[in-house]
């Protein structure tokens, strides 16, 4: 090993032994000592990480599973195992089912909307040379901005009487609505906010993907006769964006599943249960209603969904090899 050799050389110099000493002259015990010192250094450097990974990630995950299997309540001194009772409760609970369906619907709104708009805007930006940085900055702004504060701004925008949305609709003679208090509208409205927040993220990834497509391919397409805008898109652009597409899909889906801030600030899951989503349910059951076991069971279900998605992503990203 090169590194072992150089540690050895360094030590020889420190001990004023001849530096030119042949490597073959190292005794096996010398070698073992250096090997051990490297291992020791490695554990010293990585030790804190290992400790915190266990305490802050792996024990908590274990904890969630254990709590989900007990009737423990926060603050109680006793607990007993109740098997899958918490899960049975979760799955038979109408509220949870609504929350799950809402989350899936919300993701089904946010993901396609974000991808299509992000891709469209990226294509528009990349189709010209002027003001690229300007347009990119504008569309990326919501992704940076503190969502809690912007949710408050959205609330004012959607306000039934003074909100710009209703004022505009009224001005042009369209029906107005109480957007955040209407059971049939609240989820799509939250979806619009989700798209608004995430499309900048999708856009910059698509922009990077577009930039990495070699000009040669467009030239070849020109010469081969695929020189109309739509032909170039089908022949070169979209296929070459394939891997980025999958990546954006999964990351945006993950983010959408984890939506919390807008629900917490704008609707508290209401009206009724119309905008209740998984992470809000998890928060409320665990920390407001202190239904600890139930909350843990929700957390396990949530974990299961997100890990599945991430693993699918890892699988799909492996296919990227084809494109290189």
């Amino acid at each position: 090993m090169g590194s072992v050799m150089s540690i050895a050389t360094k030590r020889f110099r420190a001990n004023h032994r001849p530096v030119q000493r042949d490597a073959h002259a190292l005794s096996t015990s010398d070698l073992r000592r250096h090997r051990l010192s490297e291992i020791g250094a490695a554990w010293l450097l990585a030790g804190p990480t290992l400790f915190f990974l266990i305490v802050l990630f792996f024990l908590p995950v274990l904890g969630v599973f254990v709590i989900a299997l007990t009737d423990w309540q926060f603050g109680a001194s006793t607990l007993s195992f109740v098997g899958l009772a918490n899960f049975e409760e979760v799955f038979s609970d109408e509220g949870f089912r609504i929350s799950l369906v809402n989350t899936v619907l919300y993701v089904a709104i946010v993901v396609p909307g974000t991808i299509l708009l992000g891709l469209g805007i990226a294509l528009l930006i990349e189709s010209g040379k002027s003001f690229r940085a300007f347009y990119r900055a504008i569309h990326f702004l919501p992704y940076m901005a503190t969502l809690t504060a912007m949710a408050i701004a959205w609330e004012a925008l959607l306000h039934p009487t003074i909100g710009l949305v209703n004022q505009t609709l009224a001005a042009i003679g369209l029906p107005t609505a109480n957007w955040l208090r209407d059971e049939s509208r609240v989820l799509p409205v939250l979806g619009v906010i989700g798209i608004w927040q995430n499309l900048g993220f999708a856009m910059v990834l698509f922009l990077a993907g577009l930039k990495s497509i070699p000009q040669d391919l467009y030239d070849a397409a020109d010469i081969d006769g695929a020189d109309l805008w739509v032909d170039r898109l089908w022949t070169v652009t979209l296929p070459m964006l394939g891997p980025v597409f999958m990546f954006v899909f999964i990351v945006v889906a993950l983010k959408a599943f984890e939506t919390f801030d807008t629900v917490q600030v704008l609707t508290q899951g209401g009206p009724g249960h119309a905008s209740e989503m998984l992470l809000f349910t998890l928060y409320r059951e665990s920390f407001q209603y202190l239904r600890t076991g139930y909350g843990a069971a929700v957390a396990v279900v949530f974990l299961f969904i997100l890990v599945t998605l991430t693993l699918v992503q890892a699988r799909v990203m492996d296919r990227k090899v084809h494109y290189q």
Partner: protein
Amino acid sequence: MSTHRFAQPCTILRHAALLFTGALILIPFAWMLSLSINPPGEIFRASFSFWPQHFYGIENYTQAIAKAPLLRFMLNGVIVCTAILALQIAVCAPAAYALAKLHFPARDLLFALVLIALLLPHEVLSLPLFILGYKLGILNTYAALIFPYVVSPFGIFLIRQFFKTIPDDVVHAARLDGLSELAIVWKIMVPMALPAIIAFGIFSVVGHWNSLFWPLIAVRDQSLMPPPLGIMAFRNEEAGNDYGPLMAAATIVVLPLIIAFLAAQRWFVEGTTGGAIK
């Protein structure tokens, strides 16, 4: 390219479309700013205009700062984000170095643990972390806001990837020059990996500055609240229908990151997308 023949109409169409979508994107920001400088009377009037007849900005902003400890929220945000980032780098950089450049048994196992931790959504862990904070007696302190994030699997991953691109010879040369392994991490590797560290720093700071979920669980005292939690509390308790000061407060909370973003766009784009693009 074949585009040059349609250059004129295409360019106009492009600008028109992008200005339109850009304007839509900016509406919430514009609305927030507009309400923050409007007097209450004009906000509730039927014929509203973006720019007020009577500029009421100073009143709204001073009222916002007087009613809610906004500057305190910001200071909390700075303290918490700085502490988190400093601890993350202090913990992650040496581990990333060990994973990238040292040979030791169980290295692959440790890296696998990092990758598994990367998979775990932090919200799922909130209940046990809350219990842990309670047992340690640190709930409702800065420590409660900081401790779950001391180690960042993503940081280890990102920095390790960068360290791997630094040639082994650099490490060997440093050892020959008599540097200890820890000195190699801080004096050689970290300065060389500065782009990755900065990208990670932005990722971490933006994430924690904007985060609402854990602070909502970890602290109760207003004097400890980071900006998102602070402004939410402000809205729930104080503002009611007093939109001017509320929007002024929201503007103040949003502003620092926006300014930083506009000043260093490329870094922020790279950082907040998790280094997925360069």
